[in-house]
């Protein structure tokens, strides 16, 4: 029997998609092993959580009041207490900015190991074995847990969120008193609301050094606008100063997982491939037909990007209207 505790993350009053994805994973584990799913909700905005998470398989929601603002020690303290009370066999956190910050601290507090950013799992004789990418996806590790609870962060957009039977989870509210935050949030600046972060984007248009200048990225932005895509860049383009470091796709940049990835003037270095090879469909535009990117591409166009990209923008407009 494996009970699974899921840390629910919210955006405003709504559970994030990754929360529902984790609950779906947890429900599958619980169903297979005869355990139950418990959701932990620490956000003060989260009202009516039981009704939101119930259909995804949570039978109970532990609402903890008193740590309204996330800080790693506070959340780790609260979760460690919940683990001591609920004694779950498995604890799942989202591999988001918050979850990645928190999970290692929680692991050390619980004196257990951690499998970060899992993208798969299997149950072997009821034992939870997690699959996670290493070398940015050039290889995978399967990780078994020798200490209880098994603790893992779950990569967003990998598992599907599937509601099961109707029904609300029961809610139990408790108050927590935690130590003073060692790191405090002073201010949060909003990102570009119109554009999703590369790691969350469903469509990505990336440019390489062949773009030749920062200004020339405008042709990629025009294509991205038609597609509702986010613009990325290769390391060579970032190093040349054509693109912001936050736009870098690759092993030392962002790992993307969109349904459509369009690589424009990118040769396809191994470290770049590691960051985008799991994209569902890859289109590559490059002058050099021997460029390694074409080995990954579903559709390869051998052409000058300055000719091909504007044509592609027009053609997509035409064919999708």
């Amino acid at each position, binding site marked *: 029997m494996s009970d699974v505790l899921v840390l629910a993350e919210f955006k405003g009053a709504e559970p994030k998609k990754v929360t529902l994805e984790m609950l779906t994973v947890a429900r599958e584990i619980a169903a297979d092993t005869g355990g139950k799913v418990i959701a932990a909700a620490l956000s003060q905005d989260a009202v009516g959580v039981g009704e939101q998470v119930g259909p995804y398989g949570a039978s109970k929601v532990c609402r903890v009041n008193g740590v309204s603002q996330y800080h790693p020690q506070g959340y780790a303290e609260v979760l460690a207490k919940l683990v001591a009370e609920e004694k779950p066999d498995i604890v799942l956190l989202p591999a988001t900015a918050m979850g*990645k910050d928190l999970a290692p601290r929680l692991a050390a507090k619980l004196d257990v*190991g*951690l499998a970060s950013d899992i993208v798969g799992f299997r149950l072997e004789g009821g034992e939870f074995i997690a699959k996670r990418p290493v070398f940015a996806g050039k290889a995978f590790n399967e990780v078994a*847990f020798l200490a209880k609870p098994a603790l893992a962060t779950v990569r967003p957009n990998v598992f599907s969120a599937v509601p099961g039977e109707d029904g609300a989870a029961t809610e139990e509210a408790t108050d927590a008193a935690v130590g003073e935050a060692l790191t405090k*949030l002073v201010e949060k600046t909003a990102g570009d609301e119109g554009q999703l*972060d590369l790691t969350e984007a469903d469509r990505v248009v990336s440019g390489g050094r062949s773009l030749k200048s920062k200004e020339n990225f405008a042709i990629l932005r025009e294509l991205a606008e038609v597609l509702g895509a986010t613009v990325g860049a290769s390391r060579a383009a970032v190093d040349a100063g054509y693109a912001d470091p936050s736009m870098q796709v690759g092993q030392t940049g962002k790992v993307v997982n969109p349904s459509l990835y369009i690589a424009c003037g990118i040769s396809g270095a191994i470290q770049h491939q590691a960051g985008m090879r799991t994209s569902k469909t890859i289109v590559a535009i490059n002058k050099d037909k021997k460029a390694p990117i074409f080995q990954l591409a579903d559709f390869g166009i051998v*052409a000058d990007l300055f000719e091909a990209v504007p044509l592609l923008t027009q053609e997509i407009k035409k064919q999708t209207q």
Partner: protein
Amino acid sequence: MNIVVLCKQVPDTESKIKLLDDQSGFAEADIKWVLNPYDEFAVEEALKLREAGKAEKVIAVAAGPKRAEDALITALAMGADEAVLVEDDLFNWAEAYQVAQALAAALKEVDFQLIICGKQAVDDDSAAVPGMLAELTNIGQMTVVSKMELNDDTVTGWRDVEGGAQEVLEGKLPLIVTANRGLNEPRYASLPGIMKAKRKPFKRVGLADIGLSSLEPKTKVVGWSLPEPRAEGKMFEGNSDDLPQRVSEVVKLLVDEAKVL
């Protein structure tokens, strides 16, 4: 005050990863080992703080097998003042918690106010050692920052979060800060730097020396695999004249076949 920079030795990101015949790990034969690129940002930031007169010494610390000494020598050649290696073969693909426990034990002997390290190592991508170390040493953490300022007894850091948003955080010293791309441009080790590195203090300790008789594993890697190869794609070659046609055909395939538009 002194700054500790944590250094991990990892395969260069241009390395092709091949598995051993028995799938028990990856083949190290053709691997070029380097200092973790994110740790380079950490070393650079520490050196800049020292050069600005805000820190006295920069101490590079690693846990690794013998070959990891090269990563520390890189840090010394960049300009770090001293190095400490917790040397044991156990640290070859060790789990993050074992590394964090060893570093916590080694740091008991080190006088520091600030730890800087990469946001993750580009080999196992766990991004777990810093947070674990913060908890084990009971200090604050500030992860994934692309800008930081060291004040009298605090650090202000700009942390990158989802959706291109940024959080501005303030953390009390002692503190561990993890570096993201964008924090700075790491310098290259100069030739004189490399020569000098050989004469700088370099301390090697074993687990027993730092009071650890054993490090119980909490997780175990039970399998390695490579990603499925991608299906062969379609190539559209030609000249400028037929380019509009080729582009049109690709878009049609994206709509009808791949169904992504």
